[in-house]
């Protein structure tokens, strides 16, 4: 898919919708359209984080492998969610596995190009970072609530 063909996707996607059209053009230059089958890895823990995904359809799990318990899914992400933010900050390494649970369509961004264009267009970088931070905040909240292990507690004597 050509960058100009990606532009409509960006304009519709809630993550980018508010950005001006010229930004969509810049972003589209870094992006590609990608499809994953169930079980495909989007990235792997410890590898260099070279990509940033914006989900259009399907479901992606953030996984970790725990020796005695096997594969554990920490969260699932779906349409409208972003996947991966390790690419934004050094050391640019993924912290978990991301795996398609169902057939998934996503926009994949070249992280190196993206970072370079942010350097050139700080307003765009700022705008995307804010969006990203909003999702990070939401996930931190979720993680904190999960830490409480709420459903394990009962008030019955």
């Amino acid at each position, binding site marked *: 898919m050509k960058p100009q063909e990606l532009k409509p996707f960006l304009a519709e996607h809630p993550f980018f919708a508010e950005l001006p059209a010229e930004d969509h053009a810049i972003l589209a230059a870094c992006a590609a359209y990608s499809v994953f089958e169930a079980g495909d890895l989007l990235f792997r823990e410890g590898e260099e984080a070279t990509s940033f995904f914006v989900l259009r359809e399907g*479901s992606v*799990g*953030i996984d970790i492998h725990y020796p005695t*318990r*096997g*594969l*554990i*899914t*920490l*969260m*699932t992400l*779906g349409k409208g969610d972003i996947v991966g933010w390790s690419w934004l900050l050094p050391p640019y390494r993924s912290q978990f596995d991301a795996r398609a*649970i*169902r057939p998934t369509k996503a926009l994949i961004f070249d992280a190196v190009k993206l970072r370079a264009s942010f350097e050139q267009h700080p307003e765009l970088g700022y705008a995307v970072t804010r969006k990203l931070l909003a999702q990070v905040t939401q996930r931190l909240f*979720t993680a904190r*609530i*999960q830490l*409480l*292990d*709420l*459903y*394990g*507690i*009962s*008030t*019955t*004597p």
Partner: protein
Amino acid sequence: MGPIEQPRPMTPRPFRIETVKQETSNVFTWTLRAQKEGDTLAFQPGQFTMLYLFGVGEVPISISGDAEASGDLIHTIRAAGTVTQAMQQKQAGDLVGVRGPFGNAWPIEEAEGCDVVLAVGGLGLAPMRPTLYHILRHRERYKRVYLLYGARTPSDILYPEELRAWSDSGKIDVRITVDVGMDGWTGEVGLVTDLIRDIQLDPYHCVSMICGPEIMMHFTARALFHRRIAPQHIHVSMERSMRCATGWCGHCQLGPKFICKDGPVFDYPTIQAWLHKRER
């Protein structure tokens, strides 16, 4: 056979455990039958009983059976404290004492003609089950019906067969999420609040009932506010130390409310101010 003598509110009636079903590693369901003939227990969805285990003690447990099916009394219990742990040791044929039912009911009538969002966390599904039975029996009275259910792990999911059957029937939109995905789980992993994001509802004709840990109810209510559902149409089921269930003992007060007689079900505005008091 003479008339059934009404016992005093503090006196348990003997019931026999007919069946014990182990739901998860520490959750089990009892089917109880009154020992005195005709001593059945009419209840409304949302009410609870005080279950007395001889020699060990008494605990409040929500009723999780079908209010319109006559006969046995059904309770799903988590073995968490001394009494409930001892209860887990009991077998079919053993006797327990039952007082009740106590408390008020879920607003199943208020919800007629509306979209219904039932949000439950953990064992909160058990007190909600009578409501689900009611809705299934009278499905035509309700519009869209969602059951949003958050569990700890896939193996902690209660009543899995029933959930599947409800979902398959197409009568209820059942959505489940877990805190930690394991054992090949391919469903959602995340908070029950996240499930609210994706459902379709008419915020001006919607009633929500929430049952689960207090913090879960708090955040679920907040997520529903974001969907423009008015607080007075959000209902929660509260828990506090409950000793008498009759309003005598004073233990279960939350602000001006007695959970046992004013609740356990409250509309959100009634309880909101007291939910966030810091009892330090």
